[in-house]
């Protein structure tokens, strides 16, 4: 077991296209994987892309220690992710990992995971990890539409899955915060873990505050290095400007200036 950061050429050993905007890469490491904890991310070098100069950060979606692989769930946004979407099984990818801090273990069993869009990515490894610690979370995942709903069987292995879609084509209609679990006088959870667009996380944080429930969020940010040296990825916290790539990406909402 080792905790060292790696910069390695990994091999794409499987590629699944979930829908037109999302795909999952499974990457095989040449040496035994270092310990990877839920919430950590990887910085991926996008080779052969004229417009992608810096690495691109992606949460680690799942780890398979037996196979010595981990997975990334990627949403196509711009040039970098489009290039990655054109990879093939067998291609190699230069990756810097694992980076950042982790979600903390809950002191309760009433746990809710909330994810929207590609923000669902770190929830799978988190659910896996919670299970190992005997916690079976409720997992609320939001998608645009039925066609984008994916990997539900994966999440279902580790907890009860709730779904929302913007258009109501599957699960409840609306955003994740519109889900009926939040529509009650008291909340049945004592801890929330959340990852997704800023606006979504802020809305969830508001609910958490309202119900005085502990809540951790995984922030996005524009990163140049990903390992703490450029100071480009800061977020204001109770300790001043902190680095999302080292002191984060996971923050307890109490520490954020939200």
């Amino acid at each position, binding site marked *: 077991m080792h905790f060292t950061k790696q910069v390695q050429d990994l091999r794409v050993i499987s590629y699944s296209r979930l829908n037109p905007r999302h795909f999952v890469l499974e990457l095989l490491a040449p040496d035994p994987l270092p310990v990877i904890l839920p919430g950590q991310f990887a910085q991926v*070098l996008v080779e052969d892309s004229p417009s992608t*100069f*810096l690495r691109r950060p992606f949460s680690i979606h799942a780890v398979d220690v037996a196979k010595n692989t981990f997975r990334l769930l990627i949403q196509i946004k711009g040039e970098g992710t489009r290039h990655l979407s054109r990879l093939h099984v067998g291609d190699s990818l230069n990756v810097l990992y694992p980076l950042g801090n982790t979600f903390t273990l809950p002191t309760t069993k009433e746990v809710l995971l909330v994810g929207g869009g590609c923000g669902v990515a770190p929830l799978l490894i988190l659910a896996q990890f919670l299970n190992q610690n005997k916690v079976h979370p409720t997992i609320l995942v939001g998608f645009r539409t039925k066609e984008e709903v994916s990997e539900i069987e994966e999440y279902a292995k580790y907890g009860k899955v709730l779904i929302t879609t913007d258009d109501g084509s599957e699960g409840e209609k609306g955003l994740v915060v519109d889900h009926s679990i939040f529509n009650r006088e008291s909340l049945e959870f004592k801890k929330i873990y959340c990852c997704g667009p800023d606006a979504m996380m802020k809305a969830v944080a508001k609910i958490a505050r309202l119900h005085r429930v502990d809540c951790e969020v995984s922030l996005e940010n524009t990163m140049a290095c990903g390992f703490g040296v*450029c100071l480009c990825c800061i977020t204001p916290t109770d300790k001043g400007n902190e680095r999302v790539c080292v002191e984060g990406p996971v923050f307890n909402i109490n520490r954020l200036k939200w």
Partner: protein
Amino acid sequence: MVTPDLSVNIAGMHFKNPVTTASGTFGYGDEFLDFMDLGRLGGIFVKAVTGKNRDGNGYPRMAETASGMLNSVGLQNKGVDHFCHEIYPRIRDFNTHIIVNVSGSTIEEYVAVAERINELEKIPAIELNISCPNVKYGGMAFGTIPSMATEVTAEVRKVYKKVLMVKLSPNVTSITDLAKAAVDGGADVITLINTLLGMAIDAERRRPILSTITGGLSGPAIKPVALRMVWQVHKAVSVPIIGLGGIMNATDAIEFILAGASAIQVGTANFVDPVASVKIAEGIEAYMKRHKIEAMTSLIGALRTE
């Protein structure tokens, strides 16, 4: 052939090789311990130290550009006290030169910081950063007015007894005037270049990308400008030059050395590949072997222009 000698002597300091890392792009060095043996580098320029704690600028601080990036970090650091007590003990025994990048908003601040760093036994040199585009003096960046450059260098020279390097801004009409001004003030070494002042816009949101609107451009995009400035300054002053700006690989590094740099700094490349600096040192050695060059020193300024 014998192993080439990569060492260089800069203002009396012996560097085992000409590869060092640029301030603000290498933290305090310890972030790289997972990736490399720091002893393989000629030196490390740690990030800017100012008189007091600075929070730096707001978010966002970074924008990617064609073959480069803009940043507006704004000298975030915990101040010289914190550096001396918390950081220095942690890094003092690295097996390479640790050079401190000294920044400030006033001459007094530069002097105060330099004086403190002067006391640190294992810091053989400082690099006076008079070129940060985010620090202003009378509306203009400090390092763009030759007389100001001379003055701040001379004042620091009075209190700083070891090797004094001055890092110049490229955002000037005549880089040679600034270099001469720094030498007049007592600079032992000239470092160039810092970032070019640039800007990025998000056309969809019709907003600037950086919270500060403008920021500093670095990366391969600026290499041609940096090389030109190293070449011009090399012809204009006789002190050694440390060259940087967009160096990504050994070939880039050798170009700077040929243009007149005695050593080079690896900056933005560290973000793309944390091991870039070590690979560059290895690549320079391979180049020297291939070209049968025994001593690094014979390459400095050895551009053939006849």
